């Protein structure tokens, strides 16, 4: 009983520090006078702030367009992969998912390189170059980049919905006289609609919270969005933290509303794993290949090409080939190597720490009850809070005059930020891991002499182990690519991979940034591969 209380206290303390404290300080700060007006609460000032209204419309427009782009593409991919899978469908599925693993700011950078005046598309298909460049630097272009990044997510959700469907419903409809479309409408659509709504909300949520893509493209597009406005209020003189908090609160509310609609829709798994395999069709490869080309091959190709080029203006020529950028990144004295080291160390520590905390939380949530429901809400809330808002909250909380904990201004603040943003993912894996353990196995352990702690260590953790490693992998990968909180919180003299790439791109030192992208992806893939291999070898 004592151990359980301690566990609850510890978990509540962790989530309180990670989630509640920054949120509370944001709300408090948003109710303070706006720094530039000196009268009236910052939150109320937003009502008459034209810049804010534009930013709000920009965010809503970008997110809505991303939904419009991502949903049909994701649906087509899911339907094709399910009802007309191409040969080697597992390989295709892997290829479809890769764009989600590429940080969106990198996709945006890659596409600016592709359609720019000296870009590959401009060089190869001159007529397409300029229109594509105009499109990219627009609200729709920003939304399209986000859609490329998020379409795999839509695909996963819709594919799962199709997979959970009961094929006998379609068979029953067909046997009783329904045509193909009618059978689809009766047997499939009711399952797919909630999933479509869920996917749409998730795309809206992720796009409205995105910082990297608008930070790179919105300046040229003449569009402002909330996330970049918040960052500007904390970063550009005169710093206006109440305004940043107030805008953050609005963005946060937008996210939380979307999230509350999303949550009930996301639990549609009925556990009916579809065993029927449809025959493969060669033609389904064509649309899939088009998506893979646009969302993955071209951006990755651009990143790789630029990372090996002496000068991007010269283009793809052997005389333009160089190892210089890689050599620079990997030389021990360079700031790039420091950034790489910092990212790897932080990501590894956060992966371990966050998974432990998530496991403790999931263990309480599993038991049910009101406190468990509150903890669950707290643990998943960062999903709805944009990184930029969390970063503002962390500045306010950890840099408050009364807070003497040595966190702000040190690398530890980045760890805290990563742990907060990745907690919902860690939690999802920890919960899934524990959910695999039937109550019967607990009972068997208790009856045969194990106390709760021994049961947790000897039964729960070993059975949930693959899921825990899976969760740690995701936390590691997300921490490696986190941009906005890193930009806003990194202490002087410290850089991580994402901020290094971003800064280099902004300064026009593109080759080094691209080489860092390649090394970052490869090194984390290598470390994760080795770690997973060792940890899952049982």
């Amino acid at each position, binding site marked *: 009983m004592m151990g359980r209380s301690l566990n609850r206290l510890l978990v509540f303390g962790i989530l309180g520090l990670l989630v509640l404290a920054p949120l509370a300080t944001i709300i408090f700060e948003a109710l303070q006078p706006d720094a530039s007006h000196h009268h009236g609460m910052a939150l109320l000032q937003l009502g008459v702030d034209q810049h804010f209204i534009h930013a709000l419309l920009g965010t809503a427009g970008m997110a809505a367009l991303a939904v419009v782009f991502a949903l049909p593409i994701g649906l087509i991919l899911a339907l094709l992969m399910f009802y007309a899978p191409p040969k080697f469908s597992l390989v295709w599925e892997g290829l479809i998912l890769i764009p989600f693993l590429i940080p969106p700011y990198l996709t945006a950078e890659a596409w600016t390189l592709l359609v720019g005046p000296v870009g590959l598309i401009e060089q190869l298909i001159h007529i397409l170059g300029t229109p594509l460049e105009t499109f990219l630097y627009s609200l729709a272009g920003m939304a399209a980049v986000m859609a490329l990044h998020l379409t795999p997510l839509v695909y996963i959700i819709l594919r799962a919905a199709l997979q959970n469907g009961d094929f006998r419903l379609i068979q029953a409809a067909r046997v009783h006289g329904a045509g193909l479309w009618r059978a689809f409408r009766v047997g499939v659509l009711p399952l797919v609609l909630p999933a479509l709504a869920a996917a749409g909300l998730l795309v809206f949520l992720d796009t409205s919270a995105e910082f990297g893509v608008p930070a790179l493209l919105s300046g040229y597009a003449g569009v402002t969005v909330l996330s970049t406005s918040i960052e500007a209020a904390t970063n550009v003189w005169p710093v206006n933290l109440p305004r940043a908090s107030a805008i953050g609160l609005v963005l946060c509310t937008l996210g939380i509303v979307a999230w509350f609609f999303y949550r009930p829709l996301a639990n549609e798994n009925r556990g009916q794993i579809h065993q029927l395999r449809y025959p493969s069709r060669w033609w389904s490869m064509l649309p899939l290949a088009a998506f893979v080309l646009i969302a993955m091959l071209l951006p990755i190709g651009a990143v790789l090409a630029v990372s090996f080029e002496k000068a991007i203006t010269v283009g793809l020529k052997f005389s333009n080939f160089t190892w210089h950028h890689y050599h620079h990144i990997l030389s021990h004295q360079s700031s790039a190597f420091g950034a790489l080291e910092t990212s790897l160390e932080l990501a590894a520590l956060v992966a371990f720490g966050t998974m432990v905390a998530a496991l403790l939380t999931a263990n309480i949530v599993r038991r049910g009850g009101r406190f468990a429901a509150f903890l669950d809400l707290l643990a998943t809330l960062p999903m709805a809070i944009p990184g930029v808002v969390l970063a503002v909250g962390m500045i306010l909380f950890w840099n408050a005059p009364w807070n003497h904990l040595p966190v702000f201004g040190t690398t530890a603040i980045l760890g805290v930020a990563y742990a907060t943003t990745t907690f919902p993912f860690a939690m999802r894996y920890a919960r899934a891991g524990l959910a695999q353990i*039937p109550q*019967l*196995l607990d*009972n*068997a*352990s*208790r*009856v*045969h*002499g*194990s*106390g709760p702690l*021994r049961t947790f260590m*000897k*039964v729960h953790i*070993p*059975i949930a*182990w693959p899921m825990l490693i899976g969760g740690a992998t995701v936390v590691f990968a997300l921490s490696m690519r986190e941009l906005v909180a890193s930009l806003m919180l990194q202490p002087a003299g410290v850089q991580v991979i994402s901020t290094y790439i971003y800064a280099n791109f902004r300064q026009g030192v593109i080759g080094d940034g691209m080489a860092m992208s390649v090394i970052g992806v490869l090194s984390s893939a290598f470390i994760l591969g080795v770690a997973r291999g060792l940890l899952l070898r*049982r």
Partner: protein
Amino acid sequence: MVAELQVKNRPAIAAVPNEPALSVRGLNVRFGTQTVLSNVQMDLEDGRYACLLGESGSGKSTLLAAIAGLIKPQAGSIRLRGQNVFTAGGMQISPEKRGIGMVFQDAALWPHLRVIDNVLFPLRAQGLPVDRERAMLLLEKMNIPATAVKRKPHELSGGQRQRVAIARAIIARPRLVLLDEPLSAVDQGVREEIRYFLRTLFREEGIAALHVTHDPSEAFYLGQHVGVLHSGHLEQWDQPEKLFRFPASENVARLSGSVRSLPVKIVQYQGGKAEVALANGQKIWVPGADTLREGKPGLLLLRPGDIDCDSPVDAFAAEAIHSHWSDGRYLVHLQAFGQHELLSYSQQSNLGPRHWQIYPNHGWCIPAETSANQEKIP
């Protein structure tokens, strides 16, 4: 003298000689407003194998969970080897400190542990010496090949997994093992094999067992003592033959084998026998419960083996409405006295008019409104 289990990590539960392995008194369990167990009383002697019959939802598994300490009852007491493990006053010993073994319906082997580690788990968890030889011997007795002991549970067949679960339950020599429908998830052939293992192993080891099942043949094959749980009430707890021949209620009769009942009126009761008036007014003498009262209605319980429908010519008339081949003879459904159905074994399958009579000293009469026959749970 008090014998103590050698347990490192928990206070030893003292075993008091001559005390039952299990003693349950006045046990009540409620889930919310629903009463699941009501006033359950039972004793199980050391080394005896007992079976508890009941339908789905009758409270069988809840009773085992309460004895194991997996749920906390609202009232009553549970004693293991003379020691209280639950009292209504608030005492509730946790499951791991009760020193019992348990076999679950679907084996519940830990999937990440090898077969041998699953079996040794209770010894390790209870801080007992890790006796690999005994584990191997038990597995050998359970017909688990030596090559399988290092395998993971998913590499075994369903029957093998259940046998490993039985070995795990008795490895630490508990005084009591609870078995929660351990054979319901295995095929018929495997079921008979495991029944045999259970009977021989528990007798050899001298371990008391409480085995719940809904299959009367399983209960009578294994049980030295058999009980029937219905709607949360333990309606009878008795020797197998008594439970079958002299059921305390219609539910007990029904759950312990095929039976049909005829409404009768009690004319008189003498020395364990009752003279009853049948629906057609005829009177016969049949064995009956001592709770029968003259002039009151009764139920005459008749099993297929109580009725002869092959030889009589001057007995009661009936109509054979259905017959099917069953265990080397026909089981005939008879319609007697209008709407009342009876069952009888017969050498002939023909339908139509038949005559029947009750074998001497067969049948069992109980009061029509025994407390056990009434629904007691709100």
